[in-house]
């Protein structure tokens, strides 16, 4: 792929991009020889001849894609079609908060101050795929919430691919800055509308200032020919609370690199995930929590249900610096395999240098509890529904912290659909 021909040398972040290209060219795509990519191979994706910029502008009608929005509620919408902003489908605002586009934030002087302080600061300069995105991303969501503000409604970021390009590689880049005591709720979704191959290499930087609250929901229920590498970097200051929920129900190959950096005290970081896979789907959750200061907490809870020949990876790294005393770090990864051919590799990685900390981790891989199955069946609930009810119950813990009821209902329905049953009550 000849990327360098497409670089805009006049661009204000040109230097950042040049450095990023250099890093990517040195390292290339990660291979299975690297420990962090041991269980996820990008080989088959690299064989596809992706075009990195769409040749034409494609449009969509709202009625055709309405179902991918959380249309039950009012929301701000930042929508991209084949990587290009769709003003027709979007609803942005500058009313007290900025909910708009990366392209304008990177070029317009009024955003310069924020861009200078935050753009590409927490994102890795070392990781090759993040560099690839830094070099070639043209578009994404820009969200700036000033001190003490909260947008009136949640923000939806949607990336559609139309399939009008044979195979497309997308590089969306989001920047979310939430100032002191401000709050925001964001839902992000990538959706391919045809069977053409799509590879999305997304980077999101989130900055949560003192006492800020951020809820970020990632819905990964894409077509079986769509692959996603999601690189999310989160910088938290004192007393901020950031929760990231990742719902992985679809796609061909999904890799989530979720990185939390606790640059302050009394911080709460939560990562939760529900993964339900079938066919030959693959999801790899790589989390990192770096406890840099004392008195902070992190909570990780990932549940996985794997059927058919699907494969999963959970790699949860927790680093507790020597100075980060009184850290509470919890990590839980529970998996149910419902097929002999499905597999999961789960690995906690704890690097603890402080002595006064509470860290716990646990991972389980199992089948459904036979006693529970008999109990449900003895009440007249057929085997298939009993299984679904137990799996639903298994995933439910993760949903209890979803704070948008309509989203929770939507996820519940997706879970029921994914498990192939209609439960006898309203989820």
């Amino acid at each position, binding site marked *: 792929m000849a990327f360098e021909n497409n670089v805009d040398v006049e661009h204000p972040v040109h230097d950042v991009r040049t450095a990023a290209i250099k890093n990517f060219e040195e390292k290339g795509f990660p291979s299975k020889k690297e420990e962090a990519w041991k269980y996820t191979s990008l080989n088959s994706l690299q064989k596809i001849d992706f075009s990195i910029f769409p040749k034409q502008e494609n449009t969509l009608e709202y009625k055709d894609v309405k179902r991918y929005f959380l249309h039950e509620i009012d929301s701000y919408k930042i929508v991209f079609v084949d990587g290009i902003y769709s003003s027709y489908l979007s609803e942005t605002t500058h009313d007290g908060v900025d909910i708009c586009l990366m392209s304008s934030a990177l070029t317009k002087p009024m955003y310069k101050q924020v861009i200078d302080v935050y753009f590409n600061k927490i994102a890795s300069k070392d990781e090759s795929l993040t560099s690839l995105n830094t070099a070639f991303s043209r578009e994404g969501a820009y969200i700036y919430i000033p001190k003490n503000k909260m947008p009136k409604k949640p923000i939806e970021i949607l990336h559609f691919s139309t399939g009008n390009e044979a195979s497309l590689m997308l590089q969306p880049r989001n920047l979310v800055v939430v100032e002191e005591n401000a709050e925001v709720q964001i839902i992000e979704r990538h959706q391919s509308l045809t069977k053409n191959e799509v590879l999305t290499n997304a980077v999101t930087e989130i900055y949560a200032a003192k006492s800020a609250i951020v809820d970020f929901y990632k819905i990964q229920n894409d077509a079986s020919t769509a692959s996603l590498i999601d690189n999310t970097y989160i910088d938290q200051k004192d007393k901020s609370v950031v929760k990231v929920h990742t719902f992985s129900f679809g796609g061909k190959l999904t890799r989530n690199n979720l990185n939390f950096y606790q640059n302050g005290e009394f911080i709460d970081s939560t990562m939760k995930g529900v993964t339900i896979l079938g066919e030959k789907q693959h999801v790899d959750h790589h989390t990192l929590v770096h406890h840099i200061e004392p008195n902070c907490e992190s909570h990780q809870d990932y549940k996985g249900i794997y059927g058919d020949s699907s494969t999963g990876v959970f790699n949860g790294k927790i680093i507790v610096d020597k100075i980060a005393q009184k850290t509470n770090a919890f990590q839980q990864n529970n998996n149910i395999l419902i097929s002999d051919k499905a597999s999961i590799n789960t690995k906690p990685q704890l690097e603890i240098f402080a002595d006064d900390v509470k860290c716990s981790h646990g991972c389980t891989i199992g089948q459904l*509890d*036979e*006693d*529970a199955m*008999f*109990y*449900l*069946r*003895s*009440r*007249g*609930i*057929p*085997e298939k*529904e*009993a299984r679904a*009810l*137990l799996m*639903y*119950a*298994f*995933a*439910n*813990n993760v949903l209890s912290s979803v704070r948008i009821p309509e989203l929770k209902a939507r996820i519940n329905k997706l879970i029921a659909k994914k498990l192939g049953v209609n*439960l*006898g*009550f309203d989820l």
Partner: protein
Amino acid sequence: MLKIKNLHASVEDKEILRGINLEVKAGEVHAIMGPNGSGKSTLASVIAGKDEFEVTEGSIELYGEDLEDISPEERAHMGVFLSFQYPVEIPGVSVTNFMKTAINESRKAKGLEDMPAKEMLKLIREKSELLEIDRKFLSRSLNEGFSGGEKKRNEIFQMAMLEPKVAILDETDSGLDIDALRIVANGVNKLKSKDNAVILITHYQRLLEYIVPDFVHVLHNGKIVKSGGKELALELEEKGYDWLKQEATV
């Protein structure tokens, strides 16, 4: 209605039931007593269809139909109910949603539509009042963090909701204080009719003061070694099981 003939059952090649014969007719209450390890709970589980146990000989018939190849859920649809000695905790599923699912699945099996929501709520209200169950309790996760007594009361609440033909209460009295025992027994008595039957499995005669049995059977070593009327329970309370064990070996 329920006929058990020469029933033998094993778990992992270990024979636990060694030839049980029992006939339960509509309108009857049978008590099955016996020392620990005599096979009481196994009998209850085998009737309900737990596949951990293998029936090696004999048969169970309900309304003349052999239950051998009938799944636990189908047995439930036919009217079998087991009140568990140790109800399983199901986090994430509320008591109400569980009951809605159970009732509507049974209706589906009978070719009926889902029960209308209003009717369901009315039924839940009626039955929870019968067992003096707090409304808040019904939105809690099934059995999760329930006390022993709450679990048992919840089992009988489920029985009241499902209105079975044959209810097997496996040590429903254990873990209940006297007030809870009275509430549970009162509930069972109200649900009793000439069309259904109750099998009480218990260690103690205490429960039988509240739910009076028509027949008492003593199970020992996987066999019914003695049957009699309600006075047999009193005799057991007085003399213990040892005399029967000896009688059985002789």
